[in-house]
């Protein structure tokens, strides 16, 4: 079997138009003319002249992989909330540590972009530092910690407090993209449920919370309905952030590397947190402001100060907090 024989094999594929890169050239980003007469005239490898560090393609991924991911992103935008399967690659960081978000960011990133990476809302958490360095090293693009300066923000578990604007893209790292997974572990089943828009089980689950606890006991990864059709997992952001997704001016892209899914919410799209008439959706509230900047109505981290139970609540969004302090806002600076 030759490499050529492996190429366009749409006949045997169950879903003929899904472009997993198969066999043959292209995987390395070279554009070797597949029917041009051999021997190939040694085209320069794409990216070798463009990458920032010798030996890496720009943003690490080869061009064939980027094309495959880009096609998935376009489909995801066209069908808001639907999880598009994609041929996730093995990245130089572990599955579960943001490989999906990293692949999405790598596929959309250009030289003019300014990248911000946050984890738990903060730019200085270890995994955020590691991912930001990865892109700085492999693409040479500018990075920032300021939400307002960024064109692309990759995030794990938070949406920035500073309202996003048109032209920005928020890329979420997603561990389990399937909102129905914990109700039905089988992919074959959940795929059918989405196809039929059969979301009754999700409502039953939420309602069981109400009958047991008096209210819905889901505090993060709280399911949403997108554009009136698909129920979607917003990634494990606290439900505090769910309202920020609705009608956001920014494009929201979601990448799940290990589970091999990409999905999207276009700007100005309705994102409704599932709820009931007698139990409307409500977000968490904190009893005190940020101890550093005095902000209220923001999400706070709880820091333990000693073994006597003293604790301090501070902004989870470090950039928002710094900005407020630079503007002269101060908190108590001490434990509650």
């Amino acid at each position: 079997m030759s490499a050529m024989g492996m190429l366009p094999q749409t006949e045997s594929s169950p879903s003929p138009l899904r472009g997993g890169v198969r066999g043959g050239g292209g995987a390395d980003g070279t554009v070797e003319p597949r029917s041009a007469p051999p021997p190939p005239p040694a085209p320069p490898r794409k990216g070798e002249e463009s990458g920032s560090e010798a030996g890496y393609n720009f943003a690490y991924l080869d061009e064939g992989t980027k094309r495959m991911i880009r096609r998935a992103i376009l489909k995801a935008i066209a069908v808001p909330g639907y999880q598009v399967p994609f041929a996730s690659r093995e990245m130089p960081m572990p599955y579960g540590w943001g490989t999906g978000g990293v692949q999405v960011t790598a596929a959309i990133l250009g030289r003019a972009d300014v990248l911000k990476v946050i984890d738990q809302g903060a730019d200085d958490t270890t995994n955020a530092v590691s991912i930001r360095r990865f892109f700085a090293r492999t693409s040479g693009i500018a990075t920032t910690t300021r939400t307002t300066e960024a064109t692309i923000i990759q995030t794990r578990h938070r949406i920035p407090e500073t309202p996003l604007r048109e032209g920005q893209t928020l890329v979420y790292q997603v561990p389990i993209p399937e909102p129905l997974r914990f109700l039905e572990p089988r992919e074959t089943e959940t795929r059918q449920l989405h196809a039929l828009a059969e979301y009754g089980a999700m409502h039953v689950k939420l309602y069981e919370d109400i009958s047991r606890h008096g209210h819905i006991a889901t505090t993060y990864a709280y399911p949403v309905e997108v554009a009136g059709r698909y129920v979607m997992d917003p990634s494990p952001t606290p439900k505090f952030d769910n309202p920020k997704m609705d009608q956001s001016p920014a494009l929201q892209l979601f990448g799940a590397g290990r589970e091999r899914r990409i999905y999207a919410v276009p700007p100005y799209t309705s994102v409704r947190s599932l709820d009931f008439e007698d139990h409307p959706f409500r977000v968490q509230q904190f009893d005190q402001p940020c101890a550093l900047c005095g902000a209220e109505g923001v999400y706070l981290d709880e820091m333990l100060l000693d073994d006597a139970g003293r604790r301090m609540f501070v902004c989870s969004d470090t950039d928002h907090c710094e900005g407020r302090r630079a503007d002269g806002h101060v908190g108590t600076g001490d434990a509650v």
Partner: protein
Amino acid sequence: MLAPGFADPVHGAQGTFRAVMNALARPGLLQPLDAGLKPPAPLTPELAALALALTDADTPVWLDAGLAASPEVAAYLRFHTGAPLTDDPARAAFAFIRDPARCPPLARFAQGTPAYPDTSTTLVLALDRIANGEGLHLAGPGIKGPTRIALSPLPEGFLAQLAENRAGFPLGVDVILTAPGLVAGLPRSTAVTES
């Protein structure tokens, strides 16, 4: 002699993709697209940019009669993309249409399946002119407030076909509109009406 592809393959493809991504994320809004290509006629620079940025050996491509009739176009696309050409619109991942007035009905292209609505065709049309602020009214995800788009030439019965396409959501095709220097998107999620 074969016409060259992107002067910088990495960033040419990235820039084209971002224009298309923005176009589909904000249906109807015009995005600038100048990839600096000079493909053989009748392929337009915009059609060529999308083909080079998005297609490869994994994406069967359908060409309309005018494009398919040109061996230079086929050679150009084959060399730069390696994409297999298909004459069955229902098998195409991408369809490139130089002559929109004679575009086959949208329903003849792949519509996707209920389990995999992403396995549908993306159509790329070369128009003479696209303008905002006049013409058809758009509504749906990605659209903020009243948005209008005027297209010419328009395939016959296009509006009814788009309505049918929208009614089948989440199945259906996605349409990318190009004109000289411009690209706009009409994803299947967009409702298009005359008034």
